[in-house]
């Protein structure tokens, strides 16, 4: 073990700094404000610090270390040139309060990204401000809320969410003050149109839908759902976490949505190690555009005298929507993430369609390969598809219920068994509609060889004795971690010598 708070070290600091501009003695603070004891931080020299974090990193699994089929998370390869680009001083050392003529390059990239997302989603206006998918949801919900307020439709207090929705959907709507109406999904996670019809009336502000849904199936009744909601004057919200499945094949606009968020960090590959950072732009139809948080980038002719600052034949300027909800982050969103995602987009251009096609190809192929290997090994009694369908989209689910019932092997056991094989486990126990659910999303950046090998080893895991599998993992840095112990014996910081 390497533990940060074990480094007591020598004197001084781990990286040397220049001197102060005036003698330290010249500083006088009001007595009440002088810090009496410095934080009990450790003292590491650079060699120790490098070794500590190298050691930690080697106890962590990433896409770079192995296949990461975590469903709903789109764990695709993060191209390295994007990291190089994000270090360019023209983004890394930019202050959001600099004047427009200092930032034409940044603003033109913002404009290009807004435009690209508008095209891909069929929306009229995009803002890049929200810094994660959930914040995008909240932002869009707020816009819809102000839209109805402006129209005087204050009775619209409800947001409809299928029970298969991601937790952020209801959480975001609730944060904005809406009442959540959860409707049950069909067995395959698809919207139950009848159930929907049963709850709609003029108190509905919004329905939030993920398409393909969290089981990886395309909602083929989506136009009908849009119609139903619109018929009572409600709005349709598209949770774009699964955008990787449909780029260039369909769009939220075509399906009748009014607002959408993008998880740029997933679809466009901003690295989000350990849980973030993300970027969650939203796009809306024109009737909602005036409510978007500002600023947004618009282009206009170049004013004379400004030619020298321009990066092309237009001027890129900040623009404040007329009835803006205000801000959801203090600055301009996660600009550094937007830049990386721009670099990612440029690599594909109109080929974003190919990207989605390969994501869907890989998901279907993996599903096929898992069944094929099960057949070969004669373990067809261990799992069934999470939903019956000819094709899935970018992800799919299996139910391990048969294994559980016949052999006492749970989805969690299998997940842990996969860790021993050197894989990240698929998402487990979500969505809840599938019992003993495992949700696989291979993404387009995995090779056929990897998918075939994974399928084989998945079946090998299933063939292990239940007792052995209960013990898994055994080859990992630690063995099964006691989460109950953690919750019962809260230890949320180093105790020092308390």
């Amino acid at each position, binding site marked *: 073990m390497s533990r940060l708070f074990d*480094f007591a070290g020598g004197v001084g*600091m781990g990286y040397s700094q220049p001197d*102060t*501009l*005036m003698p330290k003695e*010249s500083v006088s603070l*009001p007595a009440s404000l*002088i*810090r*009496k004891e*410095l*934080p009990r931080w450790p003292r590491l020299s650079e060699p120790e*610090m490098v070794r500590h974090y190298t050691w*930690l*990193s080697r106890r*962590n699994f*990433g896409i*770079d*270390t192995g296949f990461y089929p975590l469903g709903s998370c789109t764990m695709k390869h*993060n191209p390295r040139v994007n*990291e190089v*680009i*994000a*270090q*360019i*001083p023209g983004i890394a050392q*930019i202050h959001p*309060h600099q004047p427009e003529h*200092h930032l034409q*390059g940044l603003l033109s990239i913002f404009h290009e990204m807004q435009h690209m997302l508008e*095209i891909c989603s069929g929306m009229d206006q995009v803002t890049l401000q929200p810094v994660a998918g959930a*914040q995008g949801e909240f932002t869009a919900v707020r816009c819809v809320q102000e839209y109805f307020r402006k129209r005087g439709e204050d009775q619209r207090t409800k947001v409809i969410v299928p029970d298969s929705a991601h*937790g*952020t959907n*209801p959480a975001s709507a*609730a944060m904005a003050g809406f009442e959540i109406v959860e409707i049950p999904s069909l067995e395959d996670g698809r919207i139950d149109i009848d159930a929907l019809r049963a709850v709609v009336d003029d108190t509905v502000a919004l329905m939030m839908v993920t398409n393909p849904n969290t089981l990886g199936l395309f909602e*083929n009744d989506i136009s009908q759902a849009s119609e139903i909601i619109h018929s009572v004057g409600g709005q349709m919200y598209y949770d774009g976490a699964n955008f990787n499945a449909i780029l260039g094949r369909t769009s939220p606009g075509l399906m009748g949505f009014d607002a959408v968020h993008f998880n740029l960090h997933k679809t466009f590959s901003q690295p*989000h190690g*350990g*849980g*973030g950072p993300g970027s969650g732009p939203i796009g809306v139809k024109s009737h909602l555009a005036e409510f978007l948080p500002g600023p947004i980038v618009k282009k206009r002719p170049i004013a004379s005298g400004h030619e020298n600052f321009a990066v092309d034949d237009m001027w890129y300027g900040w623009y404040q929507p007329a009835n803006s909800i205000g*801000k959801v*982050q203090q*600055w301009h969103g996660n600009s550094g993430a937007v830049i990386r995602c721009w670099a990612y987009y*440029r690599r594909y251009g109109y080929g974003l*369609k190919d*990207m989605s096609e390969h994501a869907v190809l*890989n998901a279907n192929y993996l599903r096929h390969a898992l069944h094929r290997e099960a057949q070969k090994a004669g373990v067809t009694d261990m799992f069934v598809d999470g939903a019956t369908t*000819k094709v899935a989209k970018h992800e799919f689910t299996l139910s391990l219920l048969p294994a559980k019932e016949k052999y006492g092997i749970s989805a969690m056991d299998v997940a*842990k068994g996969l860790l021993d094989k050197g894989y990240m*486990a698929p*998402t487990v126990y*979500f969505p809840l509609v599938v019992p003993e659910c495992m949700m696989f999303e291979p993404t387009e950046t995995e090779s056929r060889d990897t998918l075939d090998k994974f399928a084989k080893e998945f079946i090998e895991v299933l063939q292990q004795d239940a007792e052995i599998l209960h013990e898994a*993992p055994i080859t*990992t840095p*630690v*063995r099964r*971690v006691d989460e109950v112990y953690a919750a019962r014996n*809260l*230890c949320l910081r180093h105790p020092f010598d308390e």
Partner: protein
Amino acid sequence: MVDQLPNRGLELEMLQEMGMSSIDDLFDDIPVGVRMNEPLPLPPPQSEEEIIADARRLLGANLAMSEVVSFLGAGLYRNYVPASVFQLITRGEFLTSYTPYQPEVSQGMLQAMWEFQTLISELVGLPISNLSLYDGSTAAAEALTCAVRVHNRKAEQKDTVYVSELTPPDKISVMKNYCQGAGITIKFIKHNSDGSIDLSSAQQAAGSCGVYVEQPNPLGLLDGGYPQLKEIIGDKTALIVGIQPISLGLVEAPGHYGADIVVGEGQPLGSPITAGGPIYGIFACSKTYLRLMPGRIAGKSIDVDGQEAYCLTLSTREQHIRRHRATSNICTNETLIALMGAMHMSLLGPEGLNHLALRNITACNLAKQKLSEINTIALPHLQGTHFNEFIVELPSSAADCLDYLDGIGIIGGFDASRWYPERKNWLLVTVTDQTSAKEIELLAAHIAAWSVGVSA
């Protein structure tokens, strides 16, 4: 090109194995009516070399603060991130992981999170820290809603929080967006003309759910009156203090003078400004707030063999479990950037932090001294203690002055009338550890020249 698509060229083989004959077969579940039939009207794919060339051209057209003399701060600060931090954060194991749902193979990240929590907890003087919120503004906003969740039942002023009137409007806007859904009213606390908090105004906040003030405040002042605040507002009202983390190398930790929640913009510790994101929000609190606080927390536990092990804990507060009753909707957060913060803190050590704070305050003092020598301008809060920024009152508008300086290649500061519209002539001048004495001389000389010009 294979590039990022390893199966390019293998499509047909793969399809045929599945009994399909074209990619279209994979999409025939999309109803005809919603199909996109034309190619995306976007430009062709680019090679890595072309992308990087375009990026260099476009981003090179931006004026980076590292390439000019800059006194712009106002919430985000020029800093130095040690080279080893970048080198380590880009290790694939950190960079390309995600939420540590499988703790057995995520011990590195989980331990680093837990260590971050400890570092922040020590920094601000409170026992609990999460990991992490989006930025300083959302951290402040979440602190307000958290305070209401905790105190509303017993509060005399229900659904009400008080915020320092100096708080930048963009931050207030975020707070309003976050608070409105819960029906929370935001009221304001006044400040005296010397910039210090008006303690009698603060008195009115007693019995509300929470009070939000910043230390240093948005005018750059360290307020010696804050230590009395907790007593004034009382136990049932959360004292929320927004901090600039570097200042805590010198200035008392708010947890030590009664703060219940400490929030702040983590950026100066470990993250470049990056046009305002990704950066990370600090959120720490006392035990009272633990179960109703937002965000991720890592806990120390054991594995089945009884070995030390780490995992996420208290997830029942979070949206993926509690759904619409969650304490926050946050899911993807700013862990990787917070980890840069942890690395930077590890390298600094206590003395390094102290030195860094001293570099800021001495540079600030030098700038105050130089600018106070100019007759044509004034420093309205000259007697106050500033950490790394202060207001200069100009003989004409700050906007004009900034334009003038911009022409010379100096970013002269922040036009404070963007926050306080009536203060047209207020310039907020920021110096940090990155500011040199020569740059201060330069600013003083050019402000003097300009102000003589407009005064004449």
